[in-house]
């Protein structure tokens, strides 16, 4: 769908300028194809971060870091509901699974769009945290791309922390 972006050569993992756009396209594509709902980039002020559900996928290899998604519980249930095409009440038990799979697909789609990175970077199995009273410390000290989105009017934040 969108064009490939050059990945950094060798171990130079500093993100290129175009990476936020690649990440944005990756997120939009996953929501459009797998959730069946367009996710919107807010054109005004960034939406408030509501952290009740956090999904994370690790990236290892030439591109090393963590991709995470944060949103509210209601929003996560709504995403699961759309993915499964069932009412929200039925989808609530699949909320964590759905968010984990979204993280997995966004990370996979992102690396697929970085030319030459697909075989040089492996993804972990997703991890989901529910609740917001935690602090996340990543060993991926380096660059961070964080993008806000709106899903049905609710905030979804996607972050990619890249170890350099």
């Amino acid at each position, binding site marked *: 769908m969108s064009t490939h972006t050059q990945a950094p050569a060798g171990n130079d993992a500093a993100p290129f300028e175009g990476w936020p756009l690649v990440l944005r396209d990756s997120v939009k594509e996953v929501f459009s194809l797998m959730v069946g709902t367009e996710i919107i980039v807010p054109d005004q002020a960034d939406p408030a971060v509501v952290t009740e559900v956090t999904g994370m996928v690790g990236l290892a290899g030439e591109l090393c870091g963590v991709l995470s998604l944060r949103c509210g519980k209601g929003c996560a249930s709504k995403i699961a509901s759309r993915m499964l095409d069932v009412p929200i009440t039925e989808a609530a038990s699949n909320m964590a699974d759905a968010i984990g799979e979204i993280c997995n697909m966004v990370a996979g789609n992102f690396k*697929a769009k970085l030319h030459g990175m*697909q075989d040089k970077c492996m993804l972990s199995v997703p991890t989901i945290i529910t609740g917001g009273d935690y602090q996340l410390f990543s060993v991926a000290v380096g660059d961070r791309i964080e993008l806000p989105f709106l899903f049905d009017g609710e905030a979804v934040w996607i972050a990619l922390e890249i170890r350099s």
Partner: protein
Amino acid sequence: MSIRALIVDDSSVMRKIVERCLRQAGMDLGQVQEASNGAEALALVNENRFDLILSDINMPVMDGLEFIRHLKEMESGKNIPIVMITTEGGEKSVLEALSLGAKGYIRKPFTPDQVKDHVIPVLGSQS
């Protein structure tokens, strides 16, 4: 004749989406069974007959590539067409899956049409 399918993915949400795509493709699905990893899938293949397997690669316990290796050694499994559906869509993993005996490869995220386009020819080649 209805198709007996086995869907292998560690995400139950993804298993449901794949099943829905198969039905949207107009396939006459009979029994559809699910497994959350390769080891569970092998146990189901031992006890049931399947016409089609769709499997993820990146799964805990036993991944999709290891699953194909074991499947192809089983008398009951070696002739079942298997299509991989995964985020690991690099050339290396595609070639490895195909060399192990996978008949097709679909990268997530996917459309129902992509599932149809990859699965129908595989079933056709069986008849």
